[in-house]
C-alpha cells in the first residue's frame, strides 16, 4: 500500500517532467543550446513572441535566457549563502545560549516568519525597501552614469536579495534548531568534560553532527528561493537584465528578473505557441535545477550521515 503510494509519487514526477519537456521542445529545437546564452534584449524577444500570436515563424522563437538564468543564480545564491550564515548563528544562539524566556518567544516567531505568504514580503519590498533604496542609496550621479544602459530606480538586486534572505532564513533556522536540539546531551557533556568551552563543544560536536540537517535546510531554502515568483516579480525591477559584478557598487542596484518571476508574468499569454514553448522551457530548467539540487544533497548527506542525528 505504502509502496504503491511511493510509486505514484515517482510517476507523477516523471509524467510532469515528460509533459513539460514535450511542451518545451520547440524552444530548444529553434534555439539549440543558444537558449542558455545571451542573445540580445530578452524582453524584446518575449514581446515579439507575445505579439506574434497564433502562427509564429521560426525566427520568432529566438530566445536567450541567460539574463534570467543569471538573475536566478544571483538572487538564490547570495540569499542562501547569507541566510545560511545568519540561520546557523541564530540557531546556535537559540539552542545553546538564549535564556529560556527568550527562546519561548523566538521559536514561535521564527515559525511564523517561515509561513508568511511571499506576496506580503513583496509588498514590503516595493512599499518600503525599494523607495528607501531609490531615495537614499542611489545617487543621481550614479543614475546618470548608466542612463543609456539601464535605469536604477530602487527595485533591483539589493532589494531582491534582502527580501529573499528574510524570506528563507526562518525555514533554515527552524530546521537547524530542531537538529541541534536532537544532539544527545551526553555527547556535548563528553566534550565539555574533556575541557573545551561551550562554544567549541558546539562547533566541534553539535554543529558537526547536525550537518545533514543544515544541508537539508539549505536545500529547502534554495528550492523556495528558486521558485519564488510573486515577490521577485514585484521587487526585482522587472527588467530582463544581467547585472554585471564588474560595475562595482552599481551592480547591487541593477534591476533583474529571475526565471520564476518571468514565468508568472507571461503565463497570461501562453496561448501564443512561441511564448508557450519558452515558458515551458524556463519551467523545465527550474524543475531540473530543483531535482538536481535534491539529488546532490542526498548524495552529500550519505557521506555525512554516519555521525548524523537528523535530516
Amino acid at each position: 500500500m505504502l509502496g504503491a503510494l511511493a510509486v505514484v509519487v515517482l510517476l507523477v514526477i516523471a509524467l510532469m517532467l515528460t509533459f513539460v519537456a514535450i511542451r518545451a521542445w520547440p524552444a530548444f529545437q529553434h534555439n539549440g543550446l543558444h537558449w542558455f546564452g545571451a542573445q540580445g534584449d530578452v524582453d524584446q524577444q518575449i514581446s515579439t513572441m507575445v505579439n506574434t500570436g497564433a502562427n509564429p515563424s521560426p525566427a520568432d522563437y529566438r530566445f536567450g535566457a541567460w539574463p534570467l538564468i543569471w538573475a536566478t543564480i544571483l538572487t538564490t545564491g547570495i540569499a542562501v549563502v547569507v541566510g545560511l550564515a545568519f540561520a546557523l548563528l541564530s540557531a546556535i544562539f537559540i539552542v545553546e545560549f538564549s535564556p529560556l524566556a527568550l527562546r519561548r518567544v523566538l521559536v514561535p516567531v521564527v515559525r511564523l516568519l517561515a509561513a508568511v505568504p511571499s506576496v506580503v514580503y513583496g509588498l514590503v519590498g516595493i512599499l518600503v525597501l525599494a523607495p528607501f533604496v531609490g531615495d537614499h542609496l542611489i545617487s543621481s550621479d550614479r543614475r546618470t552614469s548608466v542612463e543609456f544602459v539601464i535605469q536604477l530606480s530602487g527595485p533591483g538586486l539589493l532589494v531582491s536579495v534582502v527580501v529573499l534572505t528574510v524570506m528563507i532564513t526562518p525555514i533554515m533556522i527552524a530546521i537547524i534548531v530542531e537538529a541541534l536540539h536532537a544532539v544527545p546531551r551526553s555527547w556535548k557533556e563528553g566534550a565539555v568534560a574533556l575541557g573545551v568551552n561551550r562554544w567549541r563543544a558546539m562547533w566541534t560536536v553539535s554543529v558537526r553532527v547536525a550537518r545533514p540537517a543544515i544541508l537539508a535546510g539549505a536545500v529547502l531554502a534554495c528550492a523556495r528561493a528558486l521558485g519564488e515568483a510573486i515577490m521577485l516579480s514585484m521587487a526585482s525591477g522587472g527588467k530582463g537584465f544581467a547585472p554585471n559584478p564588474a560595475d562595482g557598487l552599481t551592480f547591487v542596484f541593477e534591476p533583474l528578473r529571475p526565471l520564476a518571476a518571468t514565468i508568472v508574468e507571461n503565463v497570461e499569454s501562453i496561448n501564443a505557441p512561441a511564448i508557450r514553448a519558452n515558458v515551458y522551457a524556463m519551467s523545465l530548467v527550474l524543475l531540473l535545477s530543483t531535482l538536481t539540487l535534491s539529488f546532490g544533497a542526498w548524495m552529500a548527506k550519505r557521506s555525512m550521515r554516519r555521525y548524523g542525528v537528523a535530516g
Partner: protein
Amino acid sequence: MSRRTRAAIAAACAATAVAAVSLPTHAAAASKPTITASGSTSVAPLAFQLARGYLRQHPGRVKFRIAQGGSDVGVADVGAGRVSIGMSSRDPKPSDPTGLVFNKIARDAVCVITNSANPIANLSTAQIQAIFSGTVRDWSQVPGAGLTGTIDIVTRTPASGTQDAFQKIFLGSKTVSSTASAKASNGLVQQAVKSDRNAVGYVSLDFVRDVHAAAYNGVACDLRNAKSGAYGGVRNFWMVTRGPATGPVRTFINWVQNSSRAQAIVGTHWVPLR
C-alpha cells in the same frame, strides 16, 4: 526532523502557492443558462458591475461566472469555446483566432502619470514619444518638469492590453526604450511611479490616485474630457464572442450596449458609448 518542523515547512510551502482570482456571482437554480466570461483584468471590474446590474433588472434570468486572466486569455478562451464571452481591453489583432466578433461595450482613458513631486503640466505626443523611446533621458530636457535627473520609464509586460493601447495611441511606430522597467499590472505601475520621483508611466484612468496625471496635448486626463471626446488617449473595451452572439449572451450584450441603465453603470468610472 520533528513533526512540528515539518508542519512549519508545509505551511511555508503552502504559503508560496498563489490563489487564483475568480469571483463567482449570484448562485441560482441549475436550470438557468450560464454566461461565462474570462479575460482582461481592466474590463473585469466593469463586467462584475454590469452582471450585478443586469441581474438586478432581470432577476433569475441567467447565471454569471466571470474569471480574469488578461485580454489575450479572454480572446483565446472564447476562440476555443471555453467561455461564452471573452473580455478584451485591446482591439482585434491579425493574429487572433478567426471568426471572432468584437462587441464594443465601453471606452477607457489611458493616462500618462508622473510622481507628484514632478507635476508636469502637459505632454505632447512628440514629447511622450521622445521620453518613452529613450531619445530624451533627463527631466531637465523636458520643459515644465518639476525636477532634474534621469527619467525612469515604467511600462507594462507584453501581455497587457493597456500596453497595446498605449503603443497604438501614444507611441505609433516608436517603441519603448529597452531600459524601461516592466510591471505586471496597473497597480504596480502606479506604485512604482508613486515611490520614485523620477518615474513616468501609463495607467488606466482608474489608477491615477496619489500620482500626477499629465495632460495630453493640452487636454487634462479625466473622466469628463474622456467622455466629451476631447481627450485623445482613449481605448475600447470589448466583449468578444465566437461568431455573432446568440441566445442569452446576445440579450446581455444588447442590454449592455443599449440600455440606459447599463451605460449609467459604465459612466461611473468609464466612458459610455453614448
